């Protein structure tokens, strides 16, 4: 069965099982590997992408749910790494191993789109589903504020 969707502005028609999680359609079929597999059960947030601007966990989202909709992955957040979150992440050297960071950034991007000046509690709440085993959380908080143009101390 074919599924029609737009990913990072490009139209695709995928001949896949409609129940296949969007994560695997992105990674295995479209070879967009910036989106990561970490748990497969919506527990870690490494797979977060946007569907029509909302953050979703692609590991538990059947690809059929993206039918006719606009999917954005980390590869599409900016053409050149110039999104304010990407810049803040690099400036503050947030990543350690880096594996969770696409999911962290995509989650934060959806937050800032809705709440351009989030409170500490809103940042924590929004990123509560994104695990980082390296423990970069304090820098993530600071980087979100920096990207939002808020004081970081």
């Amino acid at each position: 069965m074919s599924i029609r969707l737009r990913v990072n502005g490009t139209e695709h028609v995928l001949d896949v099982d409609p129940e296949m999680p969007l994560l695997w359609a992105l990674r295995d079929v479209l070879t967009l590997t910036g989106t990561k597999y970490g748990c497969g059960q919506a527990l870690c947030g490494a797979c977060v992408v946007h569907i029509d601007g909302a953050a979703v966990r692609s590991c538990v989202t059947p690809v059929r749910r993206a039918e006719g909709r606009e999917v954005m992955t980390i590869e599409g957040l900016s053409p050149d790494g110039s999104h304010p979150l990407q810049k803040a992440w690099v400036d503050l050297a947030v990543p350690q191993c880096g594996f969770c960071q696409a999911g962290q950034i995509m989650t934060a991007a959806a937050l800032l789109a809705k709440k351009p000046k989030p409170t500490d509690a809103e940042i924590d709440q929004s990123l509560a589903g994104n695990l980082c085993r390296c423990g970069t959380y304090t820098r993530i908080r600071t980087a979100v504020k920096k990207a939002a143009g808020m004081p970081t101390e």
Partner: protein
Amino acid sequence: MQDTRIRLSRRSVLEGMGLVAAGLGLEVILPARAHAAPMPTSLPAVPTEGLRANVFVHVAPDGVVTIVCHRSEMGQGVRSSLPVLIADELGADMAHVKVVQGDGDEAYGDQNTDGSSSVRKIFDDLRYAGATARTMLVAVAAKRWKVAPAECEARDHAVFHKGTQRTLKFGELAGDAAKLKVPKKDAVTLRPRSELKNLGKELPLLDGPDIVTGRAVFGADVVLPGMRTAVIARPPVAGGRVVRYDATKTLAVPGVRQVVELPAAKKPFLFQPLGGLAVVADNTWAAMRGRAALDVTWEGGDNAVYDSVAYREQLLEVIGKPGKVVRNVGDAEGALAKAAKRVQATYNTPHLAHAPMEPPAAVAKVENGTCEVWATTQNPQAARSEVAKALGIDPSKVTIHVTLLGGGFGRKSKPDYVVEAALVAKAVGAPVRLQWTREDDVRHDYYHSTSAQRLEAGLDANGKVVAWHQRIAFPPIGSTFADATFAGEGEMGQGIVDLPLAIPDVRMENCEARAHTRIGWLRSVANIYHAFAVQSFIDELAHERGTDPRDTLLEVLGPSRIVTPKDLGVAKVPNYGQSIEEHPVDTARLRRVIERVTGLARWDERKQQGRALGLAAHRSFLTYVAVVVSVVKDADERIRVDEAWIVADAGTIVNMERVRAQMEGAVVFGLSLGLYGAITMKDGAVVESNFRDYRLARIAETPRKIHVDIIPSDGRPGGIGEPGVPPVAPALANAVFALTGTRVRELPLVKTVKV
């Protein structure tokens, strides 16, 4: 675990240089620069023209300097640090340096990226790699100018003649330098430290831009033409096997190609795959669905008896009886008998899983008697030899490319999953990506050992600690490699035989414990439970005596001094594989980090400020770390860590920025294991399965502020990646006692208090 890990041949870097002269190719993968999808199958090689002074450095005629990072990047920042050190010695400008990742090859010396060893063990070797290339470039410039080499200096990617300010760029010298004989080590002079312009600075994060754009390549991101994906159903019990299976339903899943049975593992487990059934499919989803549809009957084998709840009781029983004496000074039992007061406590800790965010994964291609692998591995040389052994081919026919690692923490030092990928690829005759699911990762790890310890101290009439008796039991890492039931020397060297104590009578015993699962090393290893028990117990002694915990800790560690093996009552301190003369146990350094961290945390004002603080300090991997943790109670009576301070003396620092990041991360890692971490075994199988029941600290559970302070030093470098972890859990437990009066003697805290 110096004594029990499989040791690889550790040829010196300079011998490696000789191999280069003999024409060793430098095939390299460029994970950070290549777009993940699709991955090119022919990889860029280092250009052959120009100066290749050794396996680490190449200077091209166009001036591009290529530096190989031969250690694995797993978040510790090794790729942002080691190449800069080489470049500094060379005099290269990082703007014209290309960093490439080294494949698994003994020519590099030891590549096993664990034991916090990448700086401390090879600091000078890497400097010599850069200095050798510099010496050759300078020799060419001096000859052209007809001046003495001593009149020339290499800096800013060029050689300068000091007298006349004449300049030749590195690229202009590279061709002629390549014709020179590579100088021996004694003909190469290292720069004075002051000339290493980036040493100790906050260096840029090399892979940062690729990580934040999704271009960075991790183990499962490699794509080869015609590649299949496999997931494996492994025996639930380590050492178990398939009795019978029916794959009818599996093969009916669209996209599933075949099922491959792998040989069962035999004890000792070493780095063998665990066996089971590999489901090979066109994509990951089909492979996972196919695996779920398998009908398998398993046999558990010897380890099916393992019940970690019952085993905990066994360990507690074992430490009630004498064990093997590993350290003895004076007569602890006699001193205890005479003591005015005896204090005794028992501590225990569970198994832990590493749970790196990236589960194990590898891509393998087997054809024409060769094997090429891309893997997220800390240990590419072991991966190479294990794959060769499993395929029955010579290691020279195996190439291991190292991708970025989405975390390692010791898990990815064991290449069992790399061997799986190679075996499955061979069986199906096509390139295979072997993907571990999170459930596989949690249930088939090499687990951090579970432990029990009994500590007893004797106090004299003035409250002074005059006797110390400690018994330790845990299934050792050696059990993974041989039939070992007592701790290895390396494990006892992690906070037991090297623990400085200003106590006249000390006795330490290791009690027997048999493993019933695969035991491995996890970030800071045995230091975790040793520091938890010792640093908790000293805090208990403080409260028992009514003295300040910091003052008590300083008193028990004793005055500033070098503590010799003789003082410690042992023949030898393993000292993480390095010389005790060069890296002595120095209580001045331990005292200093304690004084510094308590100063920063305003320890003396904590009562006026109404704060509940806990303190712990520990030396590991030749680095000294002290931690203060502050805890508060939330509105719902939950205990939460609101602030933490960590001070480290790691000797000379290469990259201050990544060192700070490692200490921040160590606090969070320590909180995860202190608050929540526990793996439970029932009928030999792991009960937990994913982050739902194997909990890690989340953002809201992380302190709002983690203050990091690094002691300035030009001493010999110590480890960085691990030493931050051990003091965190005891500092947390001590803070919980300060807040609630509840003494937590068992990890994780969630078993005892509401967190």
